[in-house]
């Protein structure tokens, strides 16, 4: 029992071990004076700062705010992006007209347009959510189109030979077949969304973890700043774990 458990968990254990080793190496380098401790604080200091940022800075509430913005923005980009992708897939004209623009949108540093969004939506979580949403939209649209278009022709022929209606064809063949690629799009999108949200919080000094990191950095509280960054990673890990769950639930057997 114990042996098979170990074998099954080997990749995770190996990952953990690698992390621990890296941390120890940094600790040693910093303590040994090879790396300047005023640029990177020793991991042990960061670890000690965890309690402080949780108790004094109330970082868990900040994480909750950031996670909420992330959920709304990420969810909205799925809910809006997938249908737009479907529309583009259906209409060859729209697709040719729009695809390049959406590609450009995906590559554009929209974060830099934050003053415009500030004017439109005020200095409120609304601005943060809308910017996250806009940034997350393009990859989902593009990957939805790609996924639907890459459905194997023989599967479509199976559907045609069974005289499926176009809505049956969509729900029972095209969409399930496109699912893995759509999820790739969602993963890309959510990475953009989280970066944008934390970045904007930091830039406009508002709301969740991003703002707190800004404050800690201004105070030159380096261990605190890095501890804050660890919490951002935590939020991100939680979202991706949840996404993985949804994915394996939606498409078993892949």
């Amino acid at each position, binding site marked *: 029992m114990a042996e098979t458990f170990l074998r099954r968990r080997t990749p995770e254990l190996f990952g953990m071990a690698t992390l621990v080793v890296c941390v120890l190496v940094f600790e040693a380098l910093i303590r040994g004076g090879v790396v300047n401790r005023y640029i990177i604080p020793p991991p042990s200091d960061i670890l000690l700062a965890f309690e402080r940022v949780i108790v004094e800075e109330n970082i868990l509430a900040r994480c909750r705010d950031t996670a909420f913005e992330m959920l709304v923005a990420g969810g909205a980009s799925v809910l809006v992006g997938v249908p737009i992708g479907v529309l583009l897939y259906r209409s060859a004209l729209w697709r040719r007209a729009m695809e390049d623009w959406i590609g450009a949108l995906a590559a554009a540093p929209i974060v830099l347009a934050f003053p415009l969004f500030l004017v439109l939506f005020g200095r409120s979580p609304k601005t943060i959510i809308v910017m996250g949403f806009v940034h997350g939209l393009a990859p989902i649209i593009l990957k939805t189109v790609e996924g639907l278009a890459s459905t194997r022709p023989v599967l479509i*022929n*199976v559907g045609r*030979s*069974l005289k499926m209606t176009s809505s049956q064809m969509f729900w029972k063949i095209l969409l*399930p*077949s496109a699912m893995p690629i759509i999820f790739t799009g969602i993963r890309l999108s959510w990475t953009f969304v989280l970066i944008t949200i934390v970045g904007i919080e930091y830039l406009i000094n508002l709301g969740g973890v991003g703002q707190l990191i800004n404050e800690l950095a201004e105070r030159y509280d380096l261990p605190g700043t890095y501890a804050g960054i660890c919490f951002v990673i935590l939020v991100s890990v939680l979202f991706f774990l949840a996404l993985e769950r949804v994915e394996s639930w939606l498409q078993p*057997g*892949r």
Partner: protein
Amino acid sequence: MSISEKTPLAQEPALVVDDVVKRFGRGTEIVTAVDHMSFSVKQGEFVSVIGPSGCGKSTLFNIIGGLLSDYEGAVKIGEERISAPHPAVGMVFQEESTFPWRTVIDNVAFPLELQGVPKSERMDRAHHFIDMVGLASFENAFPSQLSGGMKQRVSIARTLVSQPKILLMDEPFAALDEQTRLLLGDKITQIQQELNQTTLLITHNLTEAVQLSDRIVVMTYRPGQVKRIVDINLPRPRTSDVVGSDAFGHYVAEIWNDLREEASRGMADSESAASRRAAHG
């Protein structure tokens, strides 16, 4: 669709292919894939179409299945000219066509699900056909966990489950080893006889064609025409045991004679194409 419903018009052709022509491309690049082909399949008959690779078999299959509506001549089921999939026709495709996101049993039950058959009934029926193709212990497996031949058997079961009056199969056994091919052939013969199913099998395998068919349509290589139609007068009920008989060997030799010519033309064609490419390259 039960046995008692057997049509009294047993000798009426269930499927007529009348002077069918299909060309691909345009200008100087035209490929005539099917060239003035005519034959018919009687109700309850098992007919195979055999020909070398690239002779237009799948093209003919797609036309009869109603997936290629843009062709000349007529394919008729009853009085109807086929230009879209016909509800009486079930198709098994040459390429792997299982749904990777469904388990074996959900793949097989899929056509019944579309018809709105209640869950317990469709599971029972799917179960029956999965058993028949020998995958009973894989009902809950996903296609990614199966071999190529096993996936093909899932597709066959998925088509059989709705008991189509006319069964169209495009090289369904190509991915199977010889033993499985023979045994599955027996199953297909058995089902076909039980349901009095009209069957058109596309194949490039001689043994398979002779083992299963009442008649064999031999195709020429490019353009795809009917070279000859051979009646196979082997006794029925027939099992794979027939493969050992003299009569069987006789038919195989006879058809191979016709086929060899076409196959070598096909080979010469691709060889000369290759050497042309080499000379250019």
